[in-house]
């Protein structure tokens, strides 16, 4: 099987995020960068498919020079090769277009993306990528089986779950629960160094980045208002006061 997994490098979930004073983005100094957690599920599923059916896994990532570390991490987990698209940042459409241009020549049987990246939280790239490649897409997948040339994917929805059968090739966007991503092992890390990574800029891919949307301003979330503690000794009176505040102040009941 010819498998592609797209990965994005994002700030560590535990990183303390500070918005730049001019609102153009976040302060990047001192941030620890990691593989987007949803992409980890995609990579793991790609590796499991390969281990079961044979073939190879290609990792594709768009981002600045530091994104190479994330590609190497995926190679250390067990992927065969990588493509690094050296465009620092782009809107969702152009990101998907760059990925599509890089993937086209590979003719994959299946493509994995995370259901969203935890930094911009757009959740669009997988679907646009599928559209640009003319492929079906199943989003938010928590279980996947490949049989008889078809992808059978489970996707939970409110109060139920759907079993979706898709023709292949297709794009799958991975949701938490799909699997338990493995850790990069020491032997894997030592081997990753020797695995090939193609580095391609926009020109090499034959694309130009023309943003269709842009982030106008980033503002930090408002400070959370301090909590309120209801005093007194009489539980009944305290409960009544709580109910009153929930209705009149918080307006939740």
């Amino acid at each position, binding site marked *: 099987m010819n498998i592609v997994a797209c990965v994005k490098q994002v700030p560590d979930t535990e990183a303390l995020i500070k918005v730049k004073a001019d609102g153009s983005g976040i302060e990047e100094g001192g941030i620890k960068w990691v593989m987007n957690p949803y992409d980890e599920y995609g990579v793991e599923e790609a590796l499991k498919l390969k281990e079961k059916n044979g073939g190879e896994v290609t990792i594709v990532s768009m981002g600045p020079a530091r994104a190479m570390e994330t590609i190497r991490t995926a190679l250390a987990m067990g992927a065969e090769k990588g493509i690094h698209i050296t465009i620092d940042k782009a809107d969702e459409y152009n990101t998907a277009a760059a990925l599509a241009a890089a993937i086209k020549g590979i003719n994959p049987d299946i493509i994995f993306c995370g259901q969203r990246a935890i930094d911009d939280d757009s959740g669009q790239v997988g679907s646009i990528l599928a559209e640009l490649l003319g492929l079906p897409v199943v989003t938010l997948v928590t279980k996947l089986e490949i049989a008889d040339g078809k992808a059978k994917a489970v996707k939970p929805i409110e109060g139920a779950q759907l079993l979706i059968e898709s023709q292949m090739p297709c794009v799958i966007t991975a949701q938490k629960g799909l699997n338990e991503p493995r*850790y990069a092992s020491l032997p894997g*890390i*030592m081997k990753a160094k020797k695995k090939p990574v193609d580095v391609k800029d926009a020109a090499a891919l034959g694309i130009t980045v023309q943003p269709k949307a842009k982030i106008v301003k980033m503002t930090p979330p408002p400070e959370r208002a301090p909590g309120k503690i209801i005093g007194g000794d009489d539980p009944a009176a305290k409960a009544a006061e709580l109910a009153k505040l929930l209705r009149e102040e918080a307006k939740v009941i």
Partner: protein
Amino acid sequence: MDFQLSEEQRMFKQSVHAFADERLAPLVEEWDKKGAFLDHSILSEYVDMGLLGITLPEKYGGAGLTAFDAVLAMEELARVSPLAAMPVFETSVGPIRVVELFGTEEQKERFIPPACTGEKLMAVAMTEPEAGSALTDLTTRAVLEGDHFVINGQKRFITGGGYSDYYMVYVRMSDAKGAKGIGGIVVEKGSPGFTFGKQETFMGLRGTPSCDLIFEDCIVPKENLIVPEGGFVFLMQAFDVERCGNATMSLGIAWGALEAAKRYAQERKAFGKPICEFQGVQFLLADMAMKVEAARLLIYRAAVNAGLGLPSIYESSVAKCFANEIGKEVTDMALQVFGGYGYSTEYPVERMLRDSRGWPVAGGTVQMQRVNIAGAMLGRRFSQR
């Protein structure tokens, strides 16, 4: 001089960091409170990650990397608990390296692969009821009788006791006094005449097996002799690396305590603001950071040089002694940052303080490290007798 880790080392650290946080940190409290020993099923995850036998040759299933790489892994693991770092200690800086240094081809093939797969770990037995710092006073005796040794004597405080399958037991092999008469024999669990005393209850490191080993006419095949009589004096290189491993336990614990204190100081409020805004707390944190950083650099230097084939009793003793001392200090300071919660068993820092306390005793006391340092510094060997 270059203080940067290689890309592989950075990636390895990151991977071990995540493994420690996600897989091991949730188990730490149970190890401590229930005294439950590290489960064999979790050991298989260490194997998958290549964490066993980092310094052992690839030929026997190790990774063939350096003592420094093992130190990096141990530091990340000991950050959540020294118990988590123990399997790396045992298979990368512990007695199995003595097999690698001294063993015959057959012995290496027999003992190293099962260490790398986690099936059979090796403990080290030097200390005796009447021989601790004065190690060369040991009296456990091995006598060759035909094709086997007969061992009599008793060992004390043996980490892994009752749990490990193999024991590198240092024994007196003749009437020769001091180091000259000492050799090392691997005794397998279940050997005739080999039994265990009751498990120790220590202040910290709860969940680490430790007990006496009792040898009563214990029979061991002569093929198990690894360090020949008198070879003990050539073990110094192995001990340098082992000291780095011991020091890294202290470093990891101190680093974990510092990280916990950093987080807590930013969350906990007093007088209407986070306590990290008080200079008194800032100075605690800054002092803790200085101690951790200094210990780290000393250990890294000693470990890198040992890996380059430039072992130095001076560097490894300075690193061990300093790290052992700051391990106590930093965990104590972290407890202070946590206030009453630090003294409570509901929070992790009191455990870290208890866990830090064993290392200045184990693997050669901090007093004996100072004896080493002074001797190396002054170019003299000071007999303690």
